[in-house]
């Protein structure tokens, strides 16, 4: 309980600190302040649909991912678990921080840190953005990079699972 209120306070201090930076910027350079604010408004417009998607996925996760489900599908380390985490990471959209609440819940439900790291790493592979990447770097490059990144994400997951075992 104490930790939770400390966390809430930390989040509020963080927001206040960022707002203070904006206020200082407005005094130093008002044009830069306006440009940042415009960028922020555009981001908000882009992010609202992603937030809705995140909410839906959180509801699905809360509905299906029960401790029973975890015991059934995630307790035994195996290739299926890695495939699930990798596909989940690739299919997730939007900025990383939008997924923190969901990941925090998964962690509470007993999913190891390494799997969370693998999920986050695979978020770098964005299927809707692949055409743009192919346009700039070519199909061969994008295919090789994607395969290497998936492989490395598993290595990172294994390393983090070893360094940071989940406290029970």
């Amino acid at each position, binding site marked *: 309980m104490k930790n939770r209120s400390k966390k809430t306070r930390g989040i509020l201090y963080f927001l206040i600190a960022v707002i203070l930076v904006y206020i200082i910027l407005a005094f130093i350079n008002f044009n830069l302040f306006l440009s940042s604010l415009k*960028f922020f408004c555009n981001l908000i417009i882009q992010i609202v649909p992603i937030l809705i998607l995140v909410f839906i996925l959180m509801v699905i996760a809360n509905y299906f991912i029960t401790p029973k489900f975890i015991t059934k599908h995630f307790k035994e380390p195996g290739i299926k678990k890695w495939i699930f985490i990798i596909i989940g990471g690739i299919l997730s959209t939007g900025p990383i921080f939008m997924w923190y609440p969901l990941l925090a819940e998964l962690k509470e439900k007993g999913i190891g840190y390494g799997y969370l790291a693998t999920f986050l790493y695979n978020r770098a592979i964005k299927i809707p953005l692949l055409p743009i990447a192919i346009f700039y770097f070519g199909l061969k490059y994008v295919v090789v990079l994607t395969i290497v990144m998936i492989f490395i994400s598993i290595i990172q997951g294994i390393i983090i699972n070893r360094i940071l075992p989940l406290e029970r």
Partner: protein
Amino acid sequence: MIIDKLKKSAIKSFKSLYKMLPLILGVLLLVSLIPVLIPKSFYLRFFQKNPILDSVTGSIIGSISAGSPITSYILGGEFLKDGVSLTAVTAFIVAWVTVGIIQLPAESLILGKKFAIIRNATSFLFAIIVALITVFLLNVM
């Protein structure tokens, strides 16, 4: 029964998201400052046309940057046109999407400081390794 369970899940999810709202707003405000304060010319002067050193530089710049991956593809494409090595550009775009220095405070608060530091540090190193392996494989193929 199903509706009740679904309702409970929705309320729980809404509460979690609601609590995160100030954090999401703070990160968005911070992310909005970066492209305005750091122009493209700032990035370019750090590349020395040495693939190994440039991949480290690419990973550092990618790590401190934030925003949509599209921006990293566009910037990376421009760097490549300007003669920056493919290894450096790969490290740059991989670090851009896998390392989140800007989001580090948020990640620490939600998932734990130790996890956030280890994940970002390994992602930084892996951006260089991914770049070296990718370019090596492309040359071999």
